[in-house]
């Protein structure tokens, strides 16, 4: 292996940093968009054609841009937001814009899975739309939301591999610059193994958390 252990460790930390920060903001963004997509749709508790007609295509547009293109396409916006277009922090802006809409679709699915009867019961007892979201929809969808966020996290790890394109660092960057470009198969193997382990760990945590919430032993 032509790279030091320190480089690998730094790369892992960079990846975790990018994943966690962008997951945090992406989840907030995705959560808000997901809830809007559900409650403003036709026949739902806050049906609103205009809002749905605005949010839905925005989410679709962001979802349809390949991440590597999004990464460079929004460089001016990134510079505006975080002051720089290069580096790990700069990679977070496109990561959030990439994962937020993705999470919103997952959250949308989870919320739509909640039995309509629950909403009817909530309405019958006089719950306001906000109460329906807060006390009925979200708690009922929670186990499914956990799985959605787990899936999104793993998607994020994949996306961070491309962060190298804007000098974002991370495991993917190491694999490309040290492994691929220098013909160092060992480095590629090591990064792949670390990524596999990372994904396994995250999926297991997500699954066990979900099972605990659903009270499945």
């Amino acid at each position, binding site marked *: 292996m032509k790279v030091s252990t320190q480089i690998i460790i730094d790369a892992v930390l960079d990846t975790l940093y990018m994943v966690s920060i962008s997951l945090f903001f992406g989840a907030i963004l995705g959560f808000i968009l997901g809830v809007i997509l559900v409650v403003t749709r036709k026949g739902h508790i806050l049906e609103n054609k205009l809002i749905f007609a605005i949010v839905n295509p925005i989410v679709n547009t962001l979802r349809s841009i390949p991440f590597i293109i999004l990464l460079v396409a929004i460089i001016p916006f990134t510079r505006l937001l975080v002051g720089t277009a290069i580096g790990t922090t700069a990679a977070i802006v496109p990561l959030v814009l990439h994962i937020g809409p993705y999470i919103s679709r997952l959250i949308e699915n989870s919320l739509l899975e909640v039995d309509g*009867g629950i909403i009817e*019961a909530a309405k019958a007892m006089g719950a306001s739309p906000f109460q329906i979201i807060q006390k009925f929809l979200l*708690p*009922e969808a929670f186990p499914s939301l956990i799985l959605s966020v787990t899936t999104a996290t793993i998607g994020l790890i994949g996306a961070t591999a491309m962060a190298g394109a804007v000098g974002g660092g991370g495991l993917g960057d190491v694999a490309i610059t040290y492994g691929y470009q220098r013909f160092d198969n060992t480095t590629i193997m090591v990064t792949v193994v670390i990524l596999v382990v990372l994904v396994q760990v995250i999926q297991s945590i997500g699954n066990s958390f979900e099972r605990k919430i659903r009270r499945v032993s």
Partner: protein
Amino acid sequence: MIEFIETTKEFQVGTSTVTALNHINLTIQKGDIFGVIGFSGAGKSTLIRTVNLLEEPSSGQVIVNGKELTTLTKSQFREEKKNIGMIFQHFNLLHSKNVFENVAMPLIISGVKKTNLRDQVNEVLAFVGLTDKANRYIDELSGGQKQRVGIARALVTKPTILLCDEATSALDPQTTKSILTLLKKINREYGITILLITHEMEVIRDICNRVAVMENGRIIETGNVLEIFSTPREETTKSFVQSVVRDEIPPSVYEQLKSMNDTKKIYSLKFIGVDVGQPIVSQVAKKFAVDVNVLFGNITELQGIPFGHLIVELVGSDKDIQKAFLFIQAKNIQIEEVVARESEHTNHYRRGSRYAVHG
């Protein structure tokens, strides 16, 4: 009290309009257990949902306890909803919460502090017999227990009206009985007016005092349960009544008709109320020179009053049979002769016209 005045509900399905409720006029009195029966698609589900505005009527009014809900502000309306409990066919309980939390939900929604609702929740849990299940989660309960949670949740805000949307349709017959008994108890002990919809005539028979039959968005027949069961006018009503009170003539009776001669006649007797307790069969046999063979019998109970149907064979001379006939008729029992119909459909038979004596 619930009043429907010219209540109409139309749905837009694609380019066509479906009329789910067609000028409904109906009054449910305080203290009633009022049943609305109909086949699927009759509009009964829409009807019950207009009472708490889960469906808003397209035109006409629904007046609940003197208030027309559509005229209230949103907050007044939410307040009013505490007065209207509702239970559902599929219970619609929160799986993420335990029994106690589910039942407490309407109180939490209306802003009662968590520390102040314990007594109220425990009281209704005791009433429905689930005190020991308070900490269980919904998926650990049986269907009957789930519906009891639903009932407790509906009662916790002390409503004056309870809406039951096919509340027993997902339950087995035995559990249905126990839930119906509970509904009756709610009506009796709390004086809560119950409006229920169902497609099962047994439910109407077991607990309702008044019933309306719906078809194609209209109410085709309404009245007290005894009336509807004894003298259904519409075909749909008749078929519902027959699902519980089998009064069609069994094939074995038709077999008997084939070997009929002048000294035997077959009659169908319908009892409503007290008469059924009278030993009519033995009286007839004693008083007149006729033998009475019971060929078929079916007795059910409506609001504590026996309601029944007997098919008997009277054997004797024409004169004696006619005397017996008049005697039975005088006892306020509907009696009709069962005769073979002369038609090209050789196996079809029909009863003679009501109260007519066939010589």
